[in-house]
């Protein structure tokens, strides 16, 4: 009886104490389980084949036409060189990326291109995170879905800063490969540009967190191996943004990670100067 009386007398202490205990019981075991899962590699292998069945027909059709037009391209490798293009090149381009590409989306002024970008995006949720707003509705769809509905000629992808502390360079590569293969299946004619992960500044690097250039370089080296130089290319914007110490130039950024809007132009120029022109 005394306890009940006290609860009535001190309702706030009682409520906080009681709810904290309940919270502790539920949160702590859950929290520890979570922590151990994120250390290992996330499992998000949605049924690729199933989703693919819709597009099989059209893919086959496209391959046929391709063979008709240019039988040589199937068997022989052409040596492509990066060339300069004008903005119209991006009319049928798609950019996939995290907050850094959000900056490109918001400040590049490329209204002709398409952007599937979101803050905090990682390679593990690139395909299935629902981030693309469907016009006229409140619904959002995933990149996997969107790539079944729309066709692109060029697909750029830069994802990798958020997951630096997650997985290993090899598991990152594996997942990246999976994403590229899925995109390839869904968009067989698109030129895919794998963008090297942009460096952080030396100051950010020296903070000693997992956000550092050594980790970025290690993963970029893995990404480079994914290029087949025929339809998948690797481009490294860091050459245009680094200072003499191999970090993102301090002047270009406030937080050491994101380009200031006024320096997005450097990235734009780099993209425009490093395009692959394929004969129609």
């Amino acid at each position, binding site marked *: 009886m005394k306890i009940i009386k006290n609860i009535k007398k001190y309702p706030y202490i009682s409520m906080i104490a009681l709810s904290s205990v309940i919270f502790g019981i539920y949160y702590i075991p859950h929290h520890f389980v979570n922590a151990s899962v994120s250390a290992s590699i996330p499992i998000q292998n949605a049924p690729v084949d199933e989703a693919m069945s819709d597009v099989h027909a059209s893919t086959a059709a496209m391959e046929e036409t391709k063979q008709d037009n240019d039988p040589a391209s199937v068997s022989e490798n052409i040596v492509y060189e990066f060339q300069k293009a004008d903005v119209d090149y991006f009319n049928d381009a798609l950019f996939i990326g995290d907050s850094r590409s959000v900056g490109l989306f918001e400040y590049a002024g490329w209204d002709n291109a398409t952007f599937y970008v979101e803050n905090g995006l990682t390679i593990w949720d690139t395909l299935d995170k629902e981030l693309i707003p469907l016009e006229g509705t409140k619904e959002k769809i995933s990149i996997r879905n969107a790539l079944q509905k729309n066709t692109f000629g060029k697909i750029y992808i830069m994802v990798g*800063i958020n997951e630096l502390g997650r997985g290993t360079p090899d598991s990152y590569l594996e997942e990246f490969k999976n994403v590229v293969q899925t995109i390839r299946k869904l968009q067989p004619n698109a030129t895919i540009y794998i963008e090297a992960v942009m460096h952080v500044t030396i100051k950010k690097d020296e903070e000693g967190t997992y956000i550092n250039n050594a980790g970025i370089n290690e993963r970029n080296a893995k990404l480079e191996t994914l290029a087949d130089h025929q339809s998948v290319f690797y481009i490294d914007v860091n050459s245009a943004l680094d200072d003499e110490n191999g970090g993102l130039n301090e002047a270009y950024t406030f937080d050491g990670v994101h380009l200031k809007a*006024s320096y997005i132009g450097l990235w734009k120029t780099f993209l425009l100067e490093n395009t692959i022109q394929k004969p129609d």
Partner: protein
Amino acid sequence: MVFSSMQFIFGFLPVFLLLYYITPNKYRNAILFFGSLIFYAFGEPVYIILLLVSLYINYTIGIYLAGINAHKKRKLLLLFSLLFNFGMLFGFKYLNFFIDNINLLLQYFNNAYHYHFITVPNVKIILPLGISFYTFQIVSYLLDIYYKKMKAEKNLLMLGTYLCMFPQLIAGPIVIYKDIYRELRHRTHSPEMFEDGLKTFTLGLSSKILIANPCGSLWHEVQVIGFESISTPLAWLSMFAFTFQIYFDFNGYSLMAIGLGRMLGLTIPKNFNQPYASKSVTEFWKRWHITLGHWFREYVYIPMGGNRNGSIRLIFNLFIVWSLTGFWHGASWNFLIWGLAVFVLITIEKLFLLKWLEQLYLLPHIYMLLVIPLSWMLFAIEKLSDIKLYFEKLFPHTVNFSMSFFDQPDLIKALSEYGLFLAAALLLCIPAFSHIYNKYKNKIAMILLLFVMFWLSVYRLISEVNNPFLYFRF
């Protein structure tokens, strides 16, 4: 360890409170002292030695200072102690600033006049947590002994508890020893006080997490974008966002400190009293960071003669006080400029403006609505070239106030993301809200509201834990 962390709320605090309350009354200061050292060690495992050395040396000086009668010797000892305390503060907080600026000066001479001065390398120093606060506290203790306002503390544990107690160790409020030593010796604990303290803590926590952090995100975002790329309306909006952030952050922290103190039976002084409702800068600074203002008044302004030696001397005294106040906030030119701007405003008010402001109703609030946020920009932006850039954004050469002026994509995006938080912040700056809280804080509806706010804050904290960066993920 900050108060607004899972580690503190569900780790340190409950364990500490349990130990504190199962311990008999007379050992509770020991628990508080050692608990506070553990609290400090979480953030600063090395500099804890500095804190303890400072405590012991000042304790000894205090006893000597009280024991000596010869005027000259007392003065000498005081001088030594001030040199020691401010020397430490200078070494850790300001040394690099001075080295950098001397180097700039030398380089200028080298370039302009072909001298060959050698520049001094910078030293790598990390600022010890809370040093600005505990230095001021211990100096106030020594000065009070010197002015014979109080006796020296003979019990080292008592002085240590005062200096180190975790509710105020890291970011104030600045507690004066003569205001709290009685409570340290004999204090009462009651469930009523505990409950009240917990409520105050919740207010502070939600103020920080639910209001200050979202407002801070907008300010952070604008900095990431770069000032040169934002529209004028967004520059204005972000300036108000920072104005809210700094208030709800700092007041939130102070409320958490006061609440924690009350849970332990200690009275920690109020630090904010509806500052944004002030009608003049003079009044504002009596309501903002009250304990710091009090410290400067008590230990700098009044010993210098205050306003008793004519208006020239008054202006000089204000100049010194506000330069120091500016500099206390950080070792950088912008803080000094900010302090000087406040000095100019307060001087103008003291000379003539205040008389007018006090008679009017609406105009003073409009004046404050402009002047205070603008002064915060000097505070918030470290690089002088960026300050210039920001003011150019706020006041562009040509303004065409048509509808299209406000039709900026960046403004619309910011409003859609942060509008709700900014509106809530604006409302909560109205004094009526705190009257309502005080009137109804024991009613069940208010208790339920606090309860919801507490768990909402925790929810936000958890999502921030999963996200290693304070503001937003990449």
